[in-house]
């Protein structure tokens, strides 16, 4: 049995998956990013190998994705997270035609054609408002873990409108609202709404078509899912493995290359060193 690896070096977390020739996932690992991307890539690779009970020599092909993909020195090919997230979403939800991925400081809207090809994409530029960082600011200001934000926000009955467009200044605004006596859940729901409207405009920019798959770490936030479904007016596919969607897509590209090598054909996806 041959195995392939997909390594996703993102801005806030490094993810790794290992899959076998039948695209079954046999190992997963996730850890927080550190300043040295190369070291983080190496660590997550070792972690996922341990999780799969495999060694370096068992991995026939590795595809790296994410901003840190060029720092994955042991990778065979780099593919952007645009293509990888599209591929990962399609693998779990074959009717996906639009992907919304909200990561730590990056939000992407990806449009997929009927043959599974990416036809268009849009990303946030110059500003991390509307990304997981916005929720990170809320977590810091409210002194509560990220995982608690969604359930608490859903308890809101009178959401507060968050007016700032800046993630950095959002902290000040949250503290200001709390000082005025607004409830944390109402402030939180306002923050979630702010993210949802910003992300919805990205989705509309590429043209939304069903099914819409929501991926990335922020998709684990139940309030975000509910709000986006409301703002976009469509149910969303959310995977239990949404954080790994990029790594899964990278693994599938690795599998393509493995299969192509078997047939002595050239590599499938464009990539560069």
């Amino acid at each position, binding site marked *: 049995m041959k195995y392939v690896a997909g390594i996703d070096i993102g801005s806030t977390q490094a993810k790794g998956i290992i899959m076998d020739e039948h695209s079954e996932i046999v190992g997963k690992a996730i850890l927080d990013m550190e300043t040295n991307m190369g070291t983080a890539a190496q660590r997550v690779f070792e972690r996922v190998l341990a999780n799969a009970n495999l060694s370096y020599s068992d991995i026939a092909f590795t595809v790296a994705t994410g901003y840190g993909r060029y720092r994955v020195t042991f990778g065979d090919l780099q593919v952007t997270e645009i293509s990888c997230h599209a591929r990962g979403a399609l693998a779990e939800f074959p009717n996906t035609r639009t992907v919304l991925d909200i990561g730590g400081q990056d939000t992407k809207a990806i449009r997929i054609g009927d043959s599974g090809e990416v036809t268009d994409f*849009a990303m946030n*530029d110059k500003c991390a408002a509307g990304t997981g960082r916005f929720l990170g600011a809320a977590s810091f200001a409210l002194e509560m873990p990220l995982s608690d934000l969604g359930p608490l926000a859903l308890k809101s009955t009178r959401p507060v409108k968050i007016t700032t467009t800046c993630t950095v200044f959002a902290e000040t605004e949250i503290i200001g609202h709390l000082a005025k006596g607004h409830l944390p859940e109402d402030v939180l729901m306002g923050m979630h709404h702010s993210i949802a409207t910003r992300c919805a405009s990205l989705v509309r920019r590429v043209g939304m078509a069903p099914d819409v798959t929501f991926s990335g770490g922020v998709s684990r936030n139940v309030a975000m899912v509910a709000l986006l479904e409301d703002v976009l007016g469509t149910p969303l596919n959310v995977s239990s493995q949404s954080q790994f969607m990029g790594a899964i897509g990278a693994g599938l590209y690795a599998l393509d290359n493995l299969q192509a090598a078997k047939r002595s054909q050239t590599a499938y996806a464009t990539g*560069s060193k």
Partner: protein
Amino acid sequence: MPKPDIAIASSLCNVYIKWAEIWERQFNTPAFVLDIPGKRFAAWKSAAGSPQHLSDARWVEGQFRDLIARCEQITGKKFVMDRLAEVEEHVNEMIRLWVDILAFNQNRPAPYNSMLDGLTYMGVLNAWRGTSEGVEYMRLLHEEVAGKVARGEGRVSDERFRLIFSGTPCYVNMRRLIELFEIHGGVFAASDYLTYAAGGLDCAGLFYDTSRPLESLAEVTTLASQMGLSNHFFSHHALAQQMKDFSADGIVYHGIKSCRTVATSMADNREYVTTRHGMPTLYIESDLIDPRYWSDAQIKNRVDAFFEVLEQRARLEGR
């Protein structure tokens, strides 16, 4: 660099007006800003010789006369009409050659990258505009590029995708921006920058009538501005034609902070070519000259993803 004696700007570019204001403050340089009427609405027809065109041209001609008087005052020299005619004759020849050079890139492979070596060609066209040296350069350039076409020599050894660039360069990262595309075998066969930043005369076969130098200067300037730059808001049909002429595989839009005139139209233009023509497009942002707006990782990420889109499309089309 010597201190400027006069700064001449026009209503076509708010940034140049700001630069002129800065020189005014720093060097006491007098500023002269031409008001050149633009297109007033989407279906505006800038027909040469039409009553509207001639009315606009007379408005511009009046300002040129004022400018002449101002320059005579500053330099102490009299304006010589024959000298203007001579300069215009040189410009005519340079533009004739420029039109050909732009068209050479319709060949496969494209002999030059319109947003790299093409910028150098245009730089000389502008800096030596109207001079005999400029004419000589354009003739040599024409010969050189024609030779490359004849030998099938491309800008890149493996031209994989032919692209159109809409917008200005990022001058502080001029080469880097284009390299990000060339490493994937992507060449910019055409760009609107080489039209509007070169005066716009090439976009409609405009040449000076040297028997009426000043009137013709006003008439051509008015038309070239309306068709070459003001046109930016309504340029989608011209772009659709360019997509065919240059066998484009994709269009890259470069939105910048420094020029709203150029950047404002891009979102709508992109929507048009994507939805009506199914053309893959990429939108990236930085700036003409402000290095603070350049984000290498963000731009590289988008460019890499764009080429993955092009490759996937090419694979589906069996290319």
